[in-house]
């Protein structure tokens, strides 16, 4: 799988070397993708970071007020309830059983209580058997039997107790505060006071129902103790399960039935089984943020789109210019190569012309001499004199042969210049090239040697271009030898050697001429670099390098100053597919 991906990417993004439409398409693609990635990636990363940071902050922002509201309400409720309980507890401890059993006293105490505290509805005294022995209030509860009732048990265990709400006087939710008293004389009784939840309601929701935050109390059965905006009035059950109570205020995110998200703060009211629930819908707080986020998203996507478009345009422009420049370079190289080709034809033309002049001169002189002999009547019937003439004429004939040989070589070259790809034997090409330079080498006293230890396989290549390469290399070697006057005792040579190397042929051109310094070696294949003063364009080696590359091969050089130079040309037996010559 990974390999396939890698292969796909390699294909999609591999830039071909040759100047072709594919190269520039791929280059454009590659660079656009790179640029877009480099521009957009940090942007996106930044966006994500900012987004999550902002969300965190926002949630914090939302949670904090909720939490403080919950705590404040919790404190107020605890204070209120604690106070109520304390009041009842005070009364339970201030008075004895006998005192309170008296209904007149109970009534008086109750009225006094009612005058100071709002909300108390009734009061009752329950003995240890569970029977309400005294009662004051609007109901007929005297003598009610609460034996075995849970609230009584809880009160007896805990000492003080607040009951969950129940439907009470006038249909309003009430709750009961009960305090258990164990006197020194062993009397055990419970004082029970009912109070409405109005004040509770008011504490829980001070401003009425005009807020977006729903604050209410529930008991441990999930029954509302106060009114809730979302879940109904008191004594109705909330539709969901509350998690286990924790000591600290807990904030939970919850999805409501309507699909909205809510933030819920839960706290316990100390001394009771109540939980204070503060719910706020999340989206109202988030609404401005969401609006902003939508805008920001537009901006970001707009920005990304802009980056993509601009990158695309920019890369297209740049790559087009690159392409123009590459094409220009190719054209210039082609022009230079062409010029060099012209030059080499010119050189050959000159070579042949000069070479042919000598035999022509010989023919002319001999014919002239024969003419002279005839005119000056030096030829009589003498056999010997006639033989002289015959010898002269034969001399002319052999000179003609020689001249023909010179022309033969050049004809072959000119004829083969046309074909650009053919199977050939590189030995032939090299021998031919050596033939052209033979005379010059002889004149300069340089030995030209070609060595092919084993027969070489056929090579498919361009004959004309190969000839040009070797003409250049051997010609340069000749020039190097000519300028070198050291080691006169050693014969100066240029040795060409060809061997097979795997799927390639390797040809070395070695001389023992003046060699090249490291400095020269570094620049030898550069254009316009020449060590010949006032001679040549400096393009010879540059073009040779280019031709070898085009033929699918490679050229390297080694040299020691004062000792000699060796060029190595490696050519594949079958060249890569290249477009035909113009």
């Amino acid at each position, binding site marked *: 799988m990974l390999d396939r991906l890698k292969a796909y990417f390699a294909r999609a993004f591999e830039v071909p070397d040759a100047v072709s439409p594919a190269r520039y398409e791929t280059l454009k693609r590659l660079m656009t993708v790179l640029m877009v990635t480099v521009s957009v990636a940090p942007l996106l990363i930044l966006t994500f970071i900012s987004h999550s940071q902002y969300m965190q902050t926002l949630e914090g922002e939302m949670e904090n007020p909720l939490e403080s509201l919950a705590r404040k309400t919790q404190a107020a409720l605890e204070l209120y309830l604690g106070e109520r309980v304390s009041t009842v507890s005070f009364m339970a401890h201030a008075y004895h059983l006998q005192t309170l059993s008296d209904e007149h006293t109970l009534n008086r105490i109750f009225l006094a209580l009612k005058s100071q505290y709002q909300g108390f509805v009734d009061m009752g005294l329950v003995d240890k058997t569970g029977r309400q022995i005294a009662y004051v209030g609007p109901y007929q509860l005297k003598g009610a039997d609460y034996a075995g009732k849970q609230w009584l048990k809880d009160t007896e265990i805990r000492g003080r107790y607040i009951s969950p709400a129940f439907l009470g006087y006038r249909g309003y939710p009430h709750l009961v505060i009960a305090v258990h008293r164990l006197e020194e004389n062993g009397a055990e009784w419970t004082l029970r006071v009912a109070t409405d939840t109005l004040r509770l309601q008011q504490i829980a929701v001070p401003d009425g129902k005009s807020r977006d935050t729903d604050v209410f109390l529930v008991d441990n059965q999930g029954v509302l103790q106060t009114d809730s905006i979302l879940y109904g009035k008191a004594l109705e059950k909330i539709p969901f399960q509350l998690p286990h109570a924790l000591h600290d205020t807990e904030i939970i995110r919850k999805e409501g039935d309507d699909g909205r998200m809510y933030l819920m703060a839960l706290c316990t009211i100390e001394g009771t089984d109540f939980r204070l629930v503060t719910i706020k819908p999340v989206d109202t707080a988030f609404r401005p943020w969401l609006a902003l986020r939508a805008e920001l998203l537009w901006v970001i996507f707009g920005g990304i789109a802009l980056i993509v478009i601009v990158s695309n345009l920019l890369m297209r422009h740049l790559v087009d210019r690159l392409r123009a420049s590459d094409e220009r370079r190719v054209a210039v190289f082609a022009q230079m190569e062409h010029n060099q080709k012209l030059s080499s*034809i010119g050189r050959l033309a000159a070579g042949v012309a000069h070479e042919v002049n000598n035999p*022509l001169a010989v023919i002319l002189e001999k014919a002239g001499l024969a003419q002279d002999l005839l005119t000056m009547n030096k030829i009589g019937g003498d056999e010997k004199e006639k033989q002289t003439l*015959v010898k002269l004429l034969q001399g002319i004939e052999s000179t*003609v042969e020689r001249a*023909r040989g010179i022309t033969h070589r050049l004809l072959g070259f*000119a004829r083969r*210049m046309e074909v650009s790809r053919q199977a050939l034997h590189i030995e032939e090409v090299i021998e031919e090239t050596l033939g052209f330079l033979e005379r010059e080498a002889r004149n300069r006293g340089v030995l030209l040697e070609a060595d092919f230890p084993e027969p070489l396989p056929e090579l498919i290549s361009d004959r004309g271009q190969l000839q040009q390469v070797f003409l250049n290399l051997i010609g340069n070697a000749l020039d190097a030898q000519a300028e070198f006057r050291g080691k006169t005792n050693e014969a100066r040579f240029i040795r060409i050697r060809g061997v097979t190397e795997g799927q390639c042929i390797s040809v070395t051109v070695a001389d023992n001429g003046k060699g090249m310094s490291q400095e020269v070696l570094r620049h030898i294949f550069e254009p316009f670099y020449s060590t010949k003063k006032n001679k040549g364009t400096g393009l010879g080696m540059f073009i040779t390098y280019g031709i070898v590359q085009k033929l699918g091969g490679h050229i390297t050089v080694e040299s020691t100053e004062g000792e000699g130079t060796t060029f190595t040309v490696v050519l594949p037996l079958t060249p890569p597919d290249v477009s035909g010559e113009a």
Partner: protein
Amino acid sequence: MTESRCMARLLASAVHELRNILAVVRESTGLGIDLLDMERKSTGARPSGERLHGVLEDSQKAVQQGAALSDAMDYLASASEMEAKGPCDITRVCHVFCLLYAREARSSKITLQTDNGEDPVWAQFSPVILLRALLDVVDLCTSVGGQISLRLSGERRDRHEGVVIEVFDGTNRELVVSALASCPRLEGLRIGWRAKLMPWTSREPRFFLTISETGGQAETN
């Protein structure tokens, strides 16, 4: 046709001609030897001086031609090294062209001549460009059947330098003249240069070949 192909063709034609020349020398010389042999066989008489003279003169003339050809090839060599802007002596180029291409032209039954004027006509372009244009013109004549004689001479007219091409003989004159008169577009030269062939005047079978620089891009063919 690229310039190097043009050069190669000219060179090939020149070398062919050279071989012909050498063949002539060989034949003449062979004949001379035969003559001497024959005479030897017929009892020590004097060699017929005149025939021998003739033979030798033929050889010498051939060698002179060969030397001229060799000179032309040398000129070709120096032309190949020249810059695009020349300069070039149009008269000399015509001479050289006729010498070099005579052999190939003969095979299409086209005779090439130059007039005998020696005055140089200088122009600001490379001889190679002109050679190529001339080759194009001769190719055109060949393509409509050849069989004509062309005379080339360098001229200056209206401050333009060029070659006057006269179709002065041959069985195919009409066709060649009309082919040349159709103001053919000569194949795209080196980038930046253009060759134009136009009738010299409306009546004569004469044409004027000029080379000029274009602004920048070559004309599309």
